[in-house]
């Protein structure tokens, strides 16, 4: 690991993080119902926008900033590794306030005392696991986006396929809150969907890991 490179990459994400942290925190603090990662369209849109914005900052191998770093003598593997770690850290920066609000009594206090949501304190236990799911959803989305751009930088045909894959991911992600399926389905539905989700992330990560060494950096 090269701390200077990591610091430089994190500096690139600062504008996104400085906007995302208050937005996420405000959303979680003010949201009246329990947060279910599969059910809330707004939450999904926030996650998708946050991931996309982070990738605009860091994830494009053919961007001028990546070319600049490549010219400084960093290998493609080093650059990719640091981009992945920087992305994870940026996600954590937005996620930690969210988890803190949900796992501490703060959200219950805000809802009950400031917003007069009298029912929230009995509903709060339902969202205890949602920070974990939010983190996984962000990680998986980042893995898919990462794959999309690394694939686009490959020396073979069909380069646009990665972008379409990301669009497909967005559609599937939005299908879930639209149908509200987890509310009436059997108890195994949510764990199965979660497993599918993690599989998607792992495949995308594996594909990126295999392809990143051959990506073309445009100078």
């Amino acid at each position, binding site marked *: 690991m090269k701390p200077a490179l990591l610091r430089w990459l994190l500096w690139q994400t600062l504008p996104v993080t400085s906007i995302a942290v208050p937005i996420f925190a405000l959303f979680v603090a003010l949201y*009246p*119902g*329990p947060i279910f990662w599969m059910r809330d369209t707004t939450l999904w849109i926030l996650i998708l926008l946050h991931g996309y914005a982070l990738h605009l900052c860091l994830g494009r191998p053919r961007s001028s900033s990546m070319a600049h770093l490549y010219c400084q003598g960093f290998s493609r593997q080093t650059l990719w590794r640091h981009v992945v770690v920087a992305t994870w850290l940026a996600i954590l920066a937005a996620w930690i306030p969210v988890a803190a609000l949900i796992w501490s009594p703060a959200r219950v206090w805000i809802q009950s005392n400031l917003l*007069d*949501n*009298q*029912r*929230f304190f*009995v*509903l709060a*236990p*339902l969202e205890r696991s949602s920070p974990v799911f939010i983190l996984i959803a962000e990680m998986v989305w980042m893995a*898919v986006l990462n*794959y999309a751009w690394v*694939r686009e930088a*490959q*020396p*073979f045909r*069909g380069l*646009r*396929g990665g972008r*379409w*894959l990301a*669009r*497909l*991911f967005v*559609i*599937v992600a*939005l*299908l*879930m809150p*639209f*149908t*509200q*399926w987890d*509310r*009436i*389905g*059997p*108890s195994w*539905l949510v764990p*199965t*969907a979660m497993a*599918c*989700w993690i*599989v*998607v992330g792992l*495949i*995308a990560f*594996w*594909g990126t890991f*295999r*392809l990143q060494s*051959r990506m073309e950096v445009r100078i």
Partner: protein
Amino acid sequence: MNATAQLVLSYAMIIGSYIGVPLLLWAAFRWSYRWFAGGGRPIESFLPHPAPRPSRTARWAESLLLGALGGMALLATSEAVQLLQNGWEPTDQQRDRVLLILAAHAAAVGVAMLLCWWRTVAAIMWLVAWHVTLLFGGEVGLFAATRDIKAEGDIDQCPVIIDLGDQTDHVDILANGVYLGQSPIHTTIGALQALPAWESAPLDRNEDGYEPSTWSQHPLHVSPRPGSGESDKLRVFFRTELDGTDVGRNRGSSGGGGTFQGRSWYPATLSLDVQFKKREAVFRRIIDHARLRDYEVGPDWETTVASYGPALRNMLLDLAEHEPQLLGLLDRMAAREYALDDVKSAAEAWQKFQTIAAQANEQSSYATDSPAGRAVEQLAKLVDAHTVADAAVARLRSLGWAQVGDHWNRSRFGVPQFGTRPGWKPKRLQLQPSDFALAHLVHRLDRRLDAEMPYDDNVLEDRLIPELARYHTYYEISDFWSSYLGGNLAARLSNSGIYASDAPRHVPFVQNYEASERLQQLSKLDDPVAKRWRAEHSRDLLQHAEEICRQLRRHGGSSELEFVFLDDPHLPNSLAVQVWPFFRDAIRRGANAGDSHEPTAEQWRYLLRIEPNTTAQMYVDAWLVGRKEPHFDHGWHELIPKIPSDKRQQVLEQLVAKTSERMDQLKGQRQTNMKHELERLQRDLAKANRPQRAGEEIIDRISGHPSDVGTQIAIMTDAFKADRDQPYVQSLAESSDEREQRWAVAAVRLFPTQKNRERLNLLIKHVHENVRDSATQLAKELDEIAAKVPEPRQRKVRKASD
């Protein structure tokens, strides 16, 4: 083309299109590619040369990603959700449609995964297009393809279930002169159509000539065309016989079902409501035996009661509302059947409850009025609340939110009978018969704990209300559960969904008025915490009542005002007393607009409920309002004896004076009518002037109907419910009027309690010979009833040839 062939063809077309269309596209693309790439001559190979390593990685990664994403979308489609939904029982057509769409989706994902090994971009775009279609209403085409698959049911095959409304089983049922068997009857429309055709019911002969027919016609509605709303009606004449001796008298019937859905029938049901007079006489003897023995009965009585099943149990439970000793007898029967006397500790009580719950599941039946239900009520006094709460929470969680709702509503336990019928088969993941037993136990235990700690939330409220609230996150839940358990938490949460906290909701039956959900709920909740809330929010409730009064209409609305009488309406500053002026004005407005039904009676009933906070003038003013429409205002006459005696005379004096004045202003028939009314009032006034004696109001009411035995019995029954000592019987027995003494004999026959039996001795010694004879005869009859328990029911099966 029949329905099955249509369905198969639709399947073939749709699945074929999802596999065939990509293959055709493939072939067309391949031909054009080879043609153009070869400059007009086909080249050797269409497929690209073996891909380099990164390309192969991408193909693997993307085909797997498409499979996983497609799988997730497959799970998330509304069709899959419907199919997986707890307790969803689709019609055949719905199931076909859902399976079709899921199969098409699976085919589309499979095609995409295959396409990855040709052009990954094409595969991804194909799946994106498919999902966009799916997301934005792509189901429409598939739905349209299956929409017309509607079969018409063969009406002969429609199953029919015929039973008796009061759940009396083993009753012989005949239809159009043919013996069908013993209830419940399971037959078909075809079998009923094959019966001899009857145009009308045959008359029954007796010694004096003809009597009303014992055959009664009941319609069965059958709808063989799904969704058409049209139904065929089959009319059959039925006759019921109990144990070969007692012929049922028709009181009506109810039914449902008989519709064809997809490719199967919902059975047509017909519940016959009949009266078995001989059996009712036996029931009376059974009950009177208990009364005459001062409710000290032996095992013979219990055996007889058990033999008549739920019909007698329900009657006992109805009577027990005003005669609690009968409930004690039912409890004793249950205690003996379930060996409850051996249950000493909370652990033993819980063990016993589990045995009852398991038995309910085995029998597929649980009813609160059954011996099992009575046993559960007794166990509720012993069980540990934490153990019950644990079991209920575990069950709620395992059932899922969709199953919890109206089954947990307290009002279900307010009626004498609730539970499942024998043979009830729960759907997958639905409430089992044992869940009804658990809900019953929770309810009774909660009542017990509420009595011990009225203002503190008990463990059941603490544990169950959050669980129920969680299952109803977004919906109005107060109707379901806040009225079931009550308590502080329920009061705090008794608003609508989390997105509409305290949002105003339309008040039922009251036009143009909305009030907060919480106000509406807590105004009606019979619970100590809600009572305290009402005391704290009396101003809001007064405004609420005022608004309801403002919008009162002739039909409906008054019931929404019932809440004002919940909390001691007899106190001088009670809500009911404060609301009276608004109610009075509302009735006056209605009367002026010709939109009020019995305005005097309505107001007098209200005034009687807020006694003693009334004056004689209030009754008179209310009466004057009703004078505008006298044809619709007669009910107040019945209420005169109920006006407290200290005001009745004043009221009647003023009524007589005002009627007299009015009569002078009228002419013709109206004057004659008014004269009759004046005479009646003068009689009432004469009675009011007499010195009082015990139960005189009741006697007055009975004497108002000298020839209407039915009304006399109803009045005596009301009096018995109000005061089981029946002081008016004593007055009647001591009277010198022969007619009143006869009423005393009738009252003793109706309610042969020990006290009344002693009063009969007075009448036996009486001067009037007729009274003496009938009293002696009654005493003999009662002695016989007290000495011997009626025989248990002897079931007899009629032969088909009878």
